């Protein structure tokens, strides 16, 4: 894909994305949430989020909603990543390094299997 920078190029990108979106309309969207409070940031949340974005870009994953949130009150588990598959309960992961984020994206977001090794237990 050629590198793009003008708004005209962006319009083309939009049209292609729109076609793809119409095909997927019924499947629902997966939500990925990263905690970005002071503690999260100091613990490396920005690099964790970057790893998630890298995976989205590299594996060309459409229809993922990325959100960030403030402090959730679980400082010792930061950086925290939460995944919500369409129609399923929220799953929270703790102390997520960029490498762990890659695995969560691959196994949970793509594969639908919760990565139990990294999961924070209990109600959050």
């Amino acid at each position, binding site marked *: *894909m050629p*590198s*793009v*920078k003008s*708004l005209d*190029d*962006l*319009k083309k*990108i*939009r049209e*292609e*994305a*729109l076609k793809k*979106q119409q095909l997927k309309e019924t499947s629902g969207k997966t939500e990925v949430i*990263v905690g*970005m*409070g*002071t503690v999260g*940031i*100091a613990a490396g949340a*920005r*690099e964790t*989020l*970057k790893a998630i*974005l890298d995976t*989205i*870009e590299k594996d*060309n*994953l*459409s*229809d*993922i*909603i*990325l*959100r*960030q949130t*403030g*402090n*959730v*009150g679980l*400082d010792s588990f930061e950086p925290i990543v939460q995944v919500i598959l369409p129609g399923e309960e929220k799953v929270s992961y703790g102390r997520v390094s960029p490498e762990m984020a890659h695995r969560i994206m691959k196994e949970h977001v793509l594969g639908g299997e919760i990565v139990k090794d990294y999961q924070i237990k209990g109600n959050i």
Partner: protein
Amino acid sequence: MRELALHILDIAENSISANADEIKIIVEEDLRSDVLRIIIQDNGKGMDAETLAKITDPFITSRKTRNVGLGIPFFKAAAEACKGAFTIQSALAKGTTVKTVFKHSHIDRMPLGDIRSTLITLILGTPDIHWIFEYRYNESCFLFDDQPIKETLDGISLTEPVVMKYIREMISSGILKARQKGSLEVIK
């Protein structure tokens, strides 16, 4: 925090929590006057004079999950450690502006760090906020405004892989060009 870019991310998170819908970040590196200036300006709910007076106290925070807030005190300390200054202005229902100045060449000044990742995190993570970023290097300036991009996309997500790539490249090349152009000015 090991980078100024992480402090910027942290302070901008305060603006997001204050329900701002427009946030402007200005980073200015002026080697001629040996100054690095960072301004984060929002139109959020702001603070009253009483809260503002205590905001640099680590034991003041608006959050309910914990009773200490270290973001602002950390940033203030970082500036004061290198002959800089920290100021914060705020008015209820108008917004808050945080300004920090650093002596650019000071040995204790943290590196600016990965400002690109900070911006991408903010822009993609909070699509409802209008982000404006201004980067100045001596006389050169790079201005990034995400509004035209969102208007052009018209409903297509910013996290579409091709869109992400577009935004990342736009910011990277903008900062790089401003730096190159600004460096030449100093040599002249």
